[in-house]
Structures are given as C-alpha cells and as structure tokens.
C-alpha cells in the first residue's frame, strides 16, 4: 500500500527553480540568473556570467597599442568614449605625453555626452523593466540626437575609435559648436521630460522604493562604484576624488542617494544627466583652439617599461585599466576593471526579500553591460 502520501505527509509546495536568462527579455544581454522561488518570493539567486567572454584582455596582448583602442570600444558598448579615454590615458601616463588642451576639452565633451546617452538608455530600459513602455521612446529620442553628433564627430554611431594616444584622430567638424548649441537645449528639455514622465509616478515609486537596498557598508565591501555606490550614500566620483583630464576645472554636483534602493540608483542617474549637461556647457564656453594631437607621438607606440593603473568615471562607475608594458609595441598585460562586474556582484546583496518582479527591477537599476562584465 503506497497510500501514505495523502495521509501522513503534507503536500510539499514546490520550490521552483527558474532559469532567468541567458535568453530573457530583461537580463540586458546574455546573463543568466538561476532563481529559486517559493511562490513569488526569491529564496536564493545565483548569477552566471561569461556568455559574452571574448577574451578582450588576452586579445589586447597581441595587438598594437592603437589597435587595442578598438577593443575597448567593444567592452562597454554604450559608453565607448569613456573606455577609449581610459586606455589612452593609461599609455599617455606611462609615456608622459602631454595632451593638448583642445583635445582634452573635446574628450570631456564626448565623454559627458556619452554618459548622458548611456543614462538615457538606462532610463528607457529601466522603464521597461518596471513595465512602463513609454520611457524608452523618450530616452531614445534624445539618445538619437546625441548619436548623430557622435556620428558627425567620429564617423561612427557606436564603435567610434576616435581617441588616440596623445589626442584625437581628427578635429571636430566645423559646425560642431552650432550643433552643440542646438543640441543642448533639446537635451535639457528632454531630461526634464524624462524626469517628469517617470520619476514620481505613483506606481513607479511603489515598485522601486525600498527595493533592493544596498547599504553603504555593503556597497564598499563589494567594491561597487559609480551610481550604485553613490546611491548608497558614498560621495565618490573619480572625476572629483582623483581628477583626470581637465575635470578639475569644471563646476558640477555629485548626486548622492540616501537609502541605496532602486529609486535612488535611478534618480542619481537622472541627476547625473543634468550635471553632465552643466559640464558640457562649461566646456563649450572654454573650448580653446589649437592642435589636437601631441607632438612626437608616433604611429607605432612603444611606451617605456613599467606598469600603470588609470581609472576614470565611466557612466557605470569606476572604470580602470591596469597596463603592464614590456617596452614593445604591444601591451604585455592589460587588466580591465569593469564597474559592471563588481556592481553585478553586489546585486546578490540586494536580493533580500525580493519578489520575482523585483529581480528584474534590481538588475535594471544596477545597469550592467555584459560586454564589459564578461570582457
């Protein structure tokens, strides 16, 4: 008689193991989370990465320095300028190259525009993650305007390959200033519209406040950076704490969150867009004339032996490059510190008491780019 099932033992409720990703609409790329749920509540979560591992670090060891820049474009494919800048700065620092003023200023403009573009993309996809379908259209409208500037300046919409060791590949087009004067008011208005559309929507607040809280201590311990770290209440911004390029000449604010929940992470980015616009205004006002390449930088670069670590403030956080040079024309070792990699790792700490629907929101609020996580 096997009839004991119905009498002695209560029926188990099924603890469901769900494989979110690698193909799932809101994993933002090929990322996989194995989630154990009890009903709708998360019991356990394990992230799996590596689906986009292209061995960028190893590939760099076989390329000339200028060729490696193209690889850096493909790491975080929504903030390409920032990545290029970091790598170029690493070599410049190693070689002691002084980059001309004009090139520095144009670099800052490009990086800040890139930051806005990246945050606009975040804004749109985060809207989709919480189930609102309109924000992405608003975000993409303005992102598209930025992309057309990128295209005009670098010739490419996505993989720019524009910065060079010692300066820029070419100067900006002659109507650059007029285009920027047209673009900036549009962007300023666009950011305000985005803010009004979503930020204080009641349902949005209900979905993001007190969700996925990352405390200050946890954020530091996990090595989180960028908006994730700032949302947790740490006023750390590489542009301020370790100023690079010409950032120490501009005046802007560093948005800092109070609770470290999803809403804070979201709103820090909205504020950052405003601050970036402020920076661009200042840069444009000060933009000097002059050369765009440092004198004496050859096409084949042979930096001296040594090692250098350079970090910059990427839209996603603290992007670092550790470069070991053996004096040849190819890097001996390139180690990339991808901010998303560590922010994603910190996501495990945000999963306390989350529901299935929250996983998506939390992941969205961390804003990862898997090209950078997996490298």
């Amino acid at each position: 008689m096997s009839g004991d099932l119905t009498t002695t033992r209560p029926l188990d409720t099924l603890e469901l193991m769900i494989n979110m990703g690698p193909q799932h609409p809101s994993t933002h790329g090929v990322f996989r989370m194995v989630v154990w749920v009890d009903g709708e509540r998360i019991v356990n979560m394990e992230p799996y990465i590596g689906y986009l591992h292209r061995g960028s670090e190893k590939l760099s060891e076989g390329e000339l320095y200028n060729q490696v820049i193209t690889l850096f474009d493909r790491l975080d494919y929504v903030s390409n300028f920032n990545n290029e800048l970091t790598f170029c700065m690493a070599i410049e620092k190693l070689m002691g190259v002084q980059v001309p003023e004009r090139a520095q200023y144009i670099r800052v403009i490009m990086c800040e525009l890139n930051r806005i573009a990246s945050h606009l993309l975040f804004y749109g996809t985060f809207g989709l993650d919480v189930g609102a379908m309109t924000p992405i259209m608003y975000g993409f409208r303005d992102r598209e305007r930025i992309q057309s500037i990128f295209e005009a300046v670098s010739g490419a919409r996505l993989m720019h390959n524009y910065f060079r060791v010692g300066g820029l590949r070419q100067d900006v087009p002659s109507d650059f200033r007029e285009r920027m004067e047209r673009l900036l008011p549009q962007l300023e208005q666009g950011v305000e519209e985005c803010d009004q559309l979503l930020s204080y929507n009641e349902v949005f607040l209900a979905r993001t406040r007190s969700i996925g809280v990352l405390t200050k201590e946890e954020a530091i311990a996990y090595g989180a950076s960028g908006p994730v770290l700032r949302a947790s209440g740490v006023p750390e911004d590489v542009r301020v704490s370790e100023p690079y390029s010409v950032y120490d000449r501009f005046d802007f604010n560093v948005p800092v969150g109070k609770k470290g929940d999803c809403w804070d992470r979201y709103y820090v980015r909205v504020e950052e867009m405003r601050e970036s616009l402020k920076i661009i205004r200042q840069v444009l006002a000060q933009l000097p004339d002059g050369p765009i390449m440092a004198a004496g930088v050859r096409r084949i670069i042979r930096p001296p032996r040594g090692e250098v670590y350079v970090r910059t403030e990427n839209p996603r956080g603290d992007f670092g490059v550790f470069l070991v040079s053996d004096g040849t024309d190819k890097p001996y070792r390139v180690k990339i510190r991808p901010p998303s990699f560590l922010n994603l790792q910190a996501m495990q700490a945000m999963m306390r008491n989350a529901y299935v629907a929250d996983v998506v929101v939390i992941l969205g609020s961390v804003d990862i780019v898997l090209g950078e996580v997996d490298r």
Partner: protein
Amino acid sequence: MAEQPPRPHRREEAPTAGPALDERGTALMALLADRLATFQPQTAAVLDEVVVTVPRERLVEVLELLKGDEQLDFNYLRCLSVVDYKTYFEVVYHLWSLAKRHKAVVKVRVPYEDAKTPSVIPVYRGADWYEREGHDLFGLMFEGHPNLKPLLLYEGFDGYPGRKSFPFHEYNEW
C-alpha cells in the same frame, strides 16, 4: 600569441618608466614602510603609485592591517589583477581609501609550480569574482575561496587561457 617569432624590437633598449611620486605619495610611501616594517616589504614607486610587495603567506594580515589602520584606511579594493611573468605570477591588489583618497598597490609573487595564494575575501568581500576569474584564466588557486567555480569559461574548459603559455594556435574548440 606565444609562438610567434621574436619581433624586431629592441627590448633591451626600452626605457623604464621612472617614479613620479608627488609629495603625498612620498609621505604615504614612508608611512607604509613604517607600518608594514614587520612584514619586510619591498617598497617601490612606479609612476605615481606606491607599490608594496609582500610575501604571500602574510598577505591577508597585511591587507587587514592596511584596511584597519586609521591613517591608511584602505577600505576599497579597486582592482585585483593577475599578471603572468612566465616564471612566476604577480597578483596585484590596487587599494583605495574612499575617505582619505589615497591609493596603494600591494603585490604578491606566486611561483609557477606552486600557483597558490590566500583568498582575500575575508578582508574585501568584492574580491570574490576577481579571484574566480583569476582561477579560471590563470589557474591560480585562491585558498580559502568558498566557491572557485569557473566564472567566465564554461565548465570543463581545458587549460588556462590567460597564461602566456596557452597554445592559442594549436587550440581547437571542436
């Protein structure tokens, strides 16, 4: 690309980047040497960074000291890199102090044959994935790491593609 013919460059003549410490860096270097005296570190300056090389057995102690010391206060692990120097590995810890805003580099050397080094997760929680990655790509054992599963490569991948000796040209995936 390990199996390429020697390139026509003048490795011997390549200059070495000299130290360029500012005053803060010099001060920090002196302070580090003072604090870590018991560990007999090799302290050097590379460009604007202070580099401290410590024996790997005492790495965790050193990091704990650096993190706990009030004046040093290195509470943030910026980067953990493994560099393959063909005869030995160097594990490089880039530290940063969020409050005091200074930086330092801690290095340990790990011989090729005995590729083991202690895990620093007890000190820096965020080292978890870095160490998994180092194990994955370089075959370095991080002793004490709770979960050294492959991170970037798939399970069952043979070899350590981060190493200089990995035979890329002979490697067939299928």
